[in-house]
């Protein structure tokens, strides 16, 4: 966390067509094959925040989700890759605040210490009073969530009230206490890449541990151009202050191939130090099953049927 520093965002310009070109290049030029691909896929599994954010979540599907988080890949596949006892689990489990208790209970029963992340502050739109938003954070932390995913107030970005945005996120940070704060920028609603950069900088200045691209509920979620801009902001913040802030894309990442592209993006823009669960997460739900299918294919040479792999 640093003080609000206006000049870090005042002269920023982002050129959209050039960023689009860079995004296309990265997808085309850094592909991984064979056993390296299997290794990268396993690494990608360890970055997943296994998520369920639906209106019809109940304790039964939360329990199933938590179990899947502890055993993301089928036992015999991991044994074939010689990775059975290496502690391959997902990075966290992400649920609505009302379901945090269920998640904590299910993980304890499974004997696993993966953190429970809760979304908060009027997820996904964020259009509720500040008082209730802060109270949501406190209640989620009380229930046992050790990571909180907050959404920023987009109206402050669109009206250019950067200092007010900084103050709000500062308050979220205080309400979290010891919990780990991820700030969701909802980039699909911010209007331009320049706004994305500025919002990222403000979020980092105000003390976020992670910046996250989107809620997963917007029309446009995590895309490569937006990610490039956010990663550049993280790198610039690191150069200015020496603090490493994490990055989480969420929403729209469904295939294993996409996840590999995301890994190479982070590796290209920020380097290998950011490829750890403390600094990189992927918010996904169906991604895990696609990765499992790719690993099944790698191990057995055959394509799995729907019922071959356990549901999450």
């Amino acid at each position, binding site marked *: 966390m640093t003080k609000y520093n206006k000049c870090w965002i005042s002269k920023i*310009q982002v*050129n959209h*067509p*050039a960023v*689009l070109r*860079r995004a296309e290049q990265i997808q085309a030029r850094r592909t991984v094959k064979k056993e390296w691909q299997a290794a990268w896929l396993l690494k990608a599994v360890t970055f997943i925040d296994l998520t369920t954010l639906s209106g019809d979540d109940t304790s039964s599907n939360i329990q199933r989700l938590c179990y899947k988080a502890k055993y993301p890949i089928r036992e015999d596949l991991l044994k074939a890759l010689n990775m059975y006892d290496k502690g391959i689990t997902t990075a966290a489990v992400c649920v609505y605040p009302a379901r945090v208790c269920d998640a904590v209970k299910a993980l304890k029963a499974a004997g696993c210490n993966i953190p429970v992340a809760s979304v908060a502050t009027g997820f996904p739109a964020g259009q509720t009073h500040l008082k209730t938003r802060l109270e949501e954070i406190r209640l989620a932390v009380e229930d046992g969530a050790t990571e909180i995913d907050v959404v920023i107030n987009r109206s402050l970005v669109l009206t250019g009230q950067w200092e007010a945005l900084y103050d709000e996120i500062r308050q979220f940070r205080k309400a979290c206490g010891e919990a780990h704060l991820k700030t969701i920028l909802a980039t699909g609603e911010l209007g331009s890449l320049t706004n994305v950069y500025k919002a990222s900088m403000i979020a980092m200045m105000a003390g976020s541990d992670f910046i996250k691209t989107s809620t997963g509920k917007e029309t446009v979620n995590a895309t490569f151009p937006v990610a490039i801009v956010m990663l550049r902001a993280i*790198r610039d913040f690191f150069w200015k202050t020496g603090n490493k802030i994490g990055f989480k894309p969420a929403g729209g990442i469904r295939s294993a191939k996409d996840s590999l592209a995301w890994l190479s993006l982070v590796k*290209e823009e920020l380097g290998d130090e950011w490829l750890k669960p403390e600094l990189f997460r992927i918010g996904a739900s169906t991604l895990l099953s696609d990765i499992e299918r790719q690993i099944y294919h790698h191990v057995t040479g055959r394509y799995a049927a729907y019922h071959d792999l356990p549901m999450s």
Partner: protein
Amino acid sequence: MRTGVIGLILPPTFSFLEMMWRICPALAVGCTVVALVPPASPTPLLLAQLSGELGPFPGILNVISGPASLVPVLASQPGIQKVAFCGALEEGRALRRTLAGECAELGLALGTESLLLLTDTADVDSAVEGVVDAAWSDRGPGGLRLLIQESVWDEAMRRLQERMGRLRSGRGLDGAVDMGARGAAACDLVQRFVREAQSQGAQVFQAGDVPSEHPFYPPTLVSNLPPASPCAWAEVPWPVVVASPFRTAKEALALANGTPRGGSASVWSERLGQALELGYGLQVGTVWINAHGLRDPSVPTGGCKESGCSWHGGPDGLYEYLRPSGTPVRLSCLSKNLNYDTFGLAVPSALPAGPEIGPSPAPPYGLFVGGRFQAPGARSSRPIQDSSGNLHGYVAEGGAKDIRGAVEAAHQAFPGWAGQSPGARAALLWALAAALERRKSTLASRLERQGVELKAAEAEVELSARRLRAWGARAQAQGHTLQVAGLRGPVLRLREPLGVLAVVCPDEWPLLAFVSLLAPALAYGNTVVMVPSAACPLLALEVCQDMATLFPAGLANVVTGDRDHLTRCLALHQDVQAMWYFGSAQGSQFVEWASAGNLKPVWVNRGCLRAWDHEAEGAGPELGLRSARTKALWLPMGD
């Protein structure tokens, strides 16, 4: 109509696209191609084999794989109508000299360096990606000169060095590398360049994941190279980027235009006005705004100054392989014993005319330079005789000093004239046309004395005035946009003036030819230095009397004197941007040979007469095409 047989010469390292962009338009308009390729590349041979399988037309593409020593042999073959050369500067120059006087035309595309201008209102990270596209990838043909505004120098350098660390080099067919190798010769060249730069005090930074075997060379960033050092003057080889700072946009333009190369450049700025101003001001063939290296077959790509003036892509690319219909095929006028060192060097002394008969002639005309009549440096004049052998008048004997003065005056007038709106230029040309018509009787009587019948003389004067008006009207035409597949945003094809144009008028049609050459040159924004008809320069000088009152000073300059001597001075002048010569065959050969000095585009007639009164030859589109140069301006859009 199409030109005929094209001889194509490709450089030691060329990309597949470059080769296709030169061969395909030639074949499309109906020419046949003989290509000379370096022995290390089998791709053109494969292409020729494929084209040979087209049953009815077996010989349209022929490929010879051979060393560079075959280049002059191919170029001087009698059946070749045009040689398209793509390669290094010195070889291009040498080829220009050997081909002087041969029947083949020459099109040069030289040099591989490009320029990137980074202002402080740019998206620096994206500009760094532009540098990677330009110099540290397989997409760019050569090295890069990078001009960075001083206020963002540190930021830009830091980001560049960080980005270089992430580049990967390796064999080209490995899908995960950014750049490959370009052969041992290219590697030696760049090693020499970097060693020299270091010895001249520059800082060299290299990074990236590069194999250490011989032909691979790491991406290199050179900074603090003193501008006056020889390295800063030479072309930057691949994969080197030479970075220099600048303070203001004006300084940036001066630095950017201050090299003899004029290929392609990109401007990075988020302020539209500033970006367009820099884009219009750069003297290059292609300008990209906030992008680098974009190419498309419908957009003309070429250069100016010492990058050669041949084009590929777009309408200009097709004009390379076409010539105006109705013109005869060019003949060789090669004179093996033309001594380039002595041609036109000394002025033969003119004996004084016999005793003057008839009314006392007017005092001798001066030279029309800088908007007024001046005495020549040599302080002598030559007599002009009319068709019956009597003395018609005296004109000044211009020399090298006068040419120098005329070119200087033309350069001083150029910025103002080029900056005029097309409407203003049209108005001046129309005013001159009106003045010509007022002077009709004087001009017609002078023409009569030269042996032209009165009716024909009056018709000539009227036609001259009409031509001035027609070119004035055509000055309104501006560049037009092209639709490019794959780019969101317009690409403008601008037509810009060449600069100072030197014109040596033919002996025949002393008034009409003079006006027919003057009008298009001025209409497109050039300033001119003209050498009027040697047989009767008086008509041109009469027109000058009107130009003295109507035109800004220095816009059109007329120098009379010995034609060969003046041709020599103009052809060897490094600051004349283009030259048109309508004189003898020997003179044409000399002009082509001498143009190798600054590689100015030349148009010669090889001693053939031209029918100036016919529309096609006297006022056809060829004149308009040759009076201006093209620039492609790319404007990708999106926010």
